């Protein structure tokens, strides 16, 4: 089977999924698509341009709080808030990028900078009283039976379709990016920055573009998060473990590939929920046992498929990645 056929079958399956699945399956599917989307956004920076961000929870959090706050205080739905969220997160990304790239900070030091920004934003939001501070921000709970598109309120299937749309859009957008001039330049910078510069590439400018796109994309995921979960806590949303969750998908699936983030998100989410279900069925409930299983599987993937699952799978299926 070639790639277009495979993709069409997958998209068709995802389109009709809500018709025959219950709320639990739908929530898991929504979560998979959410991580596929955020993984894709993170992949633009790390997979394409080689800039390791360990602080993408910053953009999710700021995006969520901006759109959530606008809705909470003024009752204006996410269609306005999303632009404010994208703008602010892109500016934040550009600020971090400027500080790092202008002064030649790269590699793990850049990663530390991204963590630092996420961390002090977390602490900062604890002190913003209009947004609830540490007690959290609660959006008016959704009417689950009617669809209110203007305020993005509706049944789980609406959120599912919204996330599916975003995930597909991100895939198409990233496909466009990686085959464009920007994609070539980013990969050149990722592989060898000095050689890239010698070929006329202004690496500062192109790295700034990568972080701007990545942070802006992630902001949209934050807006979704706010209206899907309806409650935001700085302690949770800016937590570094949220950033790690975002990057695990593409790492397991295949950094720098287009389908890696999607596959990785599916594998990890199904694994996590599968372990929970499996342990419950077996009646084992020792504390931390889920994390142990999860860790062992991650370890196995990293050991045996160091480039991720997708490149190995694509090779076996005989399709170009």
């Amino acid at each position, binding site marked *: 089977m070639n790639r277009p056929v495979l993709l069409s079958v997958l998209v068709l399956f995802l389109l009709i999924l809500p018709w025959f699945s219950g709320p639990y399956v739908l929530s898991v599917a929504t979560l998979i698509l959410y991580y596929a989307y955020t993984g894709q956004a993170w992949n633009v920076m790390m997979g394409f341009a080689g800039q390791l961000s360990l602080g993408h929870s910053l953009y999710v959090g700021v995006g969520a709080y901006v759109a959530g706050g606008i809705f909470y205080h003024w009752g204006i739905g996410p269609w306005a808030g999303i632009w404010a969220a994208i703008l602010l997160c892109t500016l934040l990304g550009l600020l971090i990028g400027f500080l790092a790239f202008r002064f030649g900070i790269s590699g793990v030091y850049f990663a530390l900078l991204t963590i630092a920004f996420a961390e002090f934003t977390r602490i900062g939001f604890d002190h913003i009283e209009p947004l609830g501070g540490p007690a959290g921000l609660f959006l008016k709970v959704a009417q689950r039976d009617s669809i209110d598109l203007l305020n993005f309120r509706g049944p789980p299937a609406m959120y599912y379709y919204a996330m599916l749309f975003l995930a597909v859009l991100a895939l198409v957008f990233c496909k466009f990016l990686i085959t464009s*001039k920007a994609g070539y*330049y980013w*990969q050149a910078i990722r*592989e060898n920055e*000095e*050689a890239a510069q010698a*070929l*006329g*590439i*202004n690496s500062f400018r192109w790295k700034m573009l990568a972080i701007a796109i990545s942070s802006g994309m992630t902001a949209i995921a934050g807006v979704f998060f706010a209206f899907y979960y309806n409650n935001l806590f700085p302690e949770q949303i800016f937590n570094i473990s949220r950033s790690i969750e975002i990057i695990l998908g593409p790492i397991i699936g295949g950094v720098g590939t287009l389908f890696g983030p999607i596959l990785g998100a599916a594998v990890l989410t199904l694994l996590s929920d599968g372990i929970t279900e499996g342990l419950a069925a077996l009646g084992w409930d020792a504390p931390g046992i889920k994390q142990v299983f999860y860790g062992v599987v991650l370890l196995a993937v990293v050991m045996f498929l160091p480039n991720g699952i997708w490149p190995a799978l694509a090779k076996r299926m005989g399709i170009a990645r």
Partner: protein
Amino acid sequence: MILLEVGALSKSFRGLTAVANATFEVRAGEIVALIGPNGAGKTTCFNMIAGVFAPDSGTILFQGSPIQNLRPDQVCAAGIGRTFQIVKPFAGLSVLDNVIVGALNKERSVSSARVFSRSILKKLNLDEKAGLPASSLTLPDRKRLEVARALATRPKLLLLDEVMAGLRPTECDEMVGVFRGLNRAEGLTILLIEHVMRAVMALAREIVVLHHGEIIGRGAPAAVVRESAVLECYLGEETVV
């Protein structure tokens, strides 16, 4: 017409003088070789021309305008292509994609860059390896890839840093043929650092000899290799060329 004019160029690293008061020029359409023993300051000279670091003093004029304060990407955009002595391929990309990155310097679209890149790979006999990852190439092929990538930026002046090192004599002659062809057919000006005298003698119209950062000899190849100072410091008494 003088294409590149290096005037009283100096650079020292923590008190160690790498290049001292170097002055030379490269005329458009010429091939000039920069030779000298290891540590003479040849690569430092190159790096200053290519914008990797700024000189302590002196000027570098390219087509009449100063370039000594430009960044590497600006120097490339101005029309100077370079190769690295220690090859720096984009290992994870295919050979063709490596060259496309260079071609995008002047080409507007990725598709036109691809077409142009294929023609360059053909010139360097790399077209059969276009689809392979650059990491799988042998050293001679990696050297060719360095040259292909630099050529893809459509330079007016090409800086070659020891591209013959590690090549077998036949491969070396083949490479010499490529550069001669480019020089004759397209008027490409070349400044090369080279230890392989076989290539230097076959290519260069003029030789500049550096020693301890200073220029100790200049002129036509046949004359320079007989100068006693050059023989003493670099080629040795019993030179075969």
